């Protein structure tokens, strides 16, 4: 037996240390701080459609920034998911949810929310080979896929753009099933990027996409075109904004908004909206366009008659989130932090001292605050050392 002393002691040493380490690890593990929604006004039931991801940074917690997810009013940490599910996590709430629910349909599709439109019955995807395989050269071929959520039936159509120009970027996909409207930017390599609107009938598919409108020509400017962030892709209007770069100095530039437009997916017309000045914002919800005007304490909301462009004042909504008043644009979209969905205005940002994420939901007709509140840690003592940074936000139009 003595000849096994070395072997048994080394194995015992490993076992003891590994077990000790495991026990220490479990003991030393501080559980992720619990989150809660603190309601200042209204009722928390209204936050149902809000889905967001945030990083939780504890100034005493080293370099660990766990990701927290708010979905349907509940907070969960990414690390609560199993190892394999964590690998498939997508840092976009819409795509992540689609992958969880329609894994097979989402396979092989570009995980960009702007390329999807979801309704209660269908999920529609538009993409091309270069979207899913980056070294493939651009072509005018596109794939349109539609999933029937109930029957799980997937239909895929291969279509090409009417003109031979290669396409660059799908800017937006809107659907009023079975009709589909695509906003596509083409000819990325030329000096002037053209943005086109195409229509497609999912029930009566053709192999060529017919251009409904050349937005660039209709708008008549080569200024950069931004598409409004609308979380419901069944809206009638697509809000648009043109902007140009002003070079301020050798190292800096600023962007100047040069015009607001709306594309009507029903009439396929571009509506130029006049009378916008600094602090004006454009929203859409269902069949209506809205204009917001920044005030000292919030935003004045108008309903816009698209025929004569007459504005009817709905009232002023007081905003308790100062930074929501400023328009936020990135990745070619605007209105990141404020939008109207099913008659409610949703805004998010941070409290005045910048310490906590803040949410506000108001009824656009009565201007009543349905919900005003913040995201905080359950353990109030930790609020000073811990901050939550919102990294992704979206509204789920299918939750009311």
């Amino acid at each position, binding site marked *: 037996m003595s*000849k*096994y002393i*070395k*072997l048994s002691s*080394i*194995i015992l*040493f*490993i076992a003891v*240390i*590994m077990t*000790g*380490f*495991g026990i*220490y*690890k479990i003991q*030393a*593990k501080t559980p992720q701080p619990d989150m809660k929604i603190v309601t200042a006004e209204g009722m928390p039931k209204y936050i149902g459609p809000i889905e967001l991801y945030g990083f939780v940074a504890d100034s*005493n*917690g*080293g*370099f*660990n920034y766990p990701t927290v997810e708010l979905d349907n009013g509940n907070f969960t940490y990414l690390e609560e998911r199993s*190892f*394999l*599910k964590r*690998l*498939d996590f997508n840092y976009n709430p819409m795509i992540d949810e689609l*992958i969880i629910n329609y*894994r097979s349909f989402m*396979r*092989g*599709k*570009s*995980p960009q929310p702007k390329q999807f439109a979801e309704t209660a019955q269908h999920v529609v995807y538009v993409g091309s*080979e270069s979207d*899913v*395989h*980056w*070294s*493939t050269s651009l072509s005018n071929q596109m794939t349109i896929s539609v999933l029937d959520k109930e029957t799980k039936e997937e239909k895929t159509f291969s279509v090409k753009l009417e003109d031979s120009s290669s396409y660059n970027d799908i800017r937006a996909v809107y659907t009023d099933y079975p009709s589909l409207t695509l906003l596509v930017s083409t000819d990325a390599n030329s000096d002037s990027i053209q943005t086109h609107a195409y229509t497609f009938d999912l029930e009566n598919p053709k192999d060529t996409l017919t251009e409904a409108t050349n937005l660039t020509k209709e708008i008549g400017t080569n200024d950069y075109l931004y598409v409004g962030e609308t979380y419901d892709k069944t809206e009638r209007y697509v809000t648009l904004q043109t902007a140009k770069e002003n070079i301020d100095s050798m190292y800096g530039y600023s962007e100047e908004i040069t015009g607001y437009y709306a594309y009507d997916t029903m009439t396929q017309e571009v509506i130029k909206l006049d009378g916008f000045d600094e602090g004006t914002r454009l929203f859409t919800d269902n069949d209506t366009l809205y204009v917001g005007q920044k005030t000292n304490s919030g935003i004045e909301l108008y309903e816009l008659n698209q025929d004569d462009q007459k504005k009817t004042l709905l009232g002023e909504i007081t905003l308790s989130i100062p930074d929501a008043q400023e328009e936020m644009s990135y990745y070619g979209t605007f209105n990141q932090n404020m939008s109207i969905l099913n008659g409610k205005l949703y805004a998010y940002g941070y409290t005045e001292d910048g310490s906590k994420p803040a949410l506000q939901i108001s009824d656009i007709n009565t201007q009543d605050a349905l919900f005003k509140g913040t995201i905080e840690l359950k353990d109030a003592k930790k609020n000073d050392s811990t901050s939550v940074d919102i990294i992704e936000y979206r509204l789920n139009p299918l939750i009311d």
Partner: protein
Amino acid sequence: MKKSLNALLKLTSFELDRLSKFLFTLMGLTLVINLAGYIYTPMRHMNKINQFMTENSATAEEALQTFGRFSFYNALNSFWIVGPIVIGITGMLFYSVFIWYREWFGKNTFAYRLLMLPVSRMTLFFSKFIVIFIGIFTLISIQMVSLFVGYPIVSAIISDTYASGLSLMEAIHAHPLFLFLFPLQPSYFMVIITAGAVMLLVLFTIILIERSFSVRGIFIGIGYAALSLAIVLFPLFLPNLLKNNYLFYSSELLIIELILMTVVGICSLFVSRYLINNKITV
């Protein structure tokens, strides 16, 4: 079955005996160099602060602004800790090759005796394989011990004013090297261990190929290594071959990868068994 397990135990114990000197040296080296690091790095930091305060008549606050707080992570992320880990990994890699060749090229040709033992020759193979893993886990364990010893040392040298308050576990979690070495995330650690085991099986197979076919074996061995690598890396080329980056989810790619690694591992075991039983030359 009992007899062959007994033989495996005996041979493993015998192999471990032969490894022990080398292993104890690596363990000692790790402890000594780490200990030097636990003392030197925080002392250097404190000296810098003290010197700065004396030379500039600065307050502790100003010194903090210039040098920042010192955490155990700073000590971990130094040559004194990373160095021995690199030495350990290199050492075990070297030993994985040496464990076979010493039987042929040592002062005496022990390969004769080993291959003429009335036990399955794969028992030799497994005993060497297990011993390498025991070696690796011993070094991981000694590194753990060292960290537990080092943390209070560093905390004692750095005065509270300049300490960051980072806990031992937070410092370990923050260091990417320990994500590979320690079972911080059990599933991830299992993947690393599987990959390591397959690598070792392939390496042993290559050595046996060389021992069976001599010079020609070197080329066949390189071919076998390239083939194994190609099989394991194949999923990474799938997106390009199928012209779609999103055809597989990351979890599926990992499962495919694990399956392919297992296939390579099992193939290596079969090839090794064939070679050690039929082709090996003393």
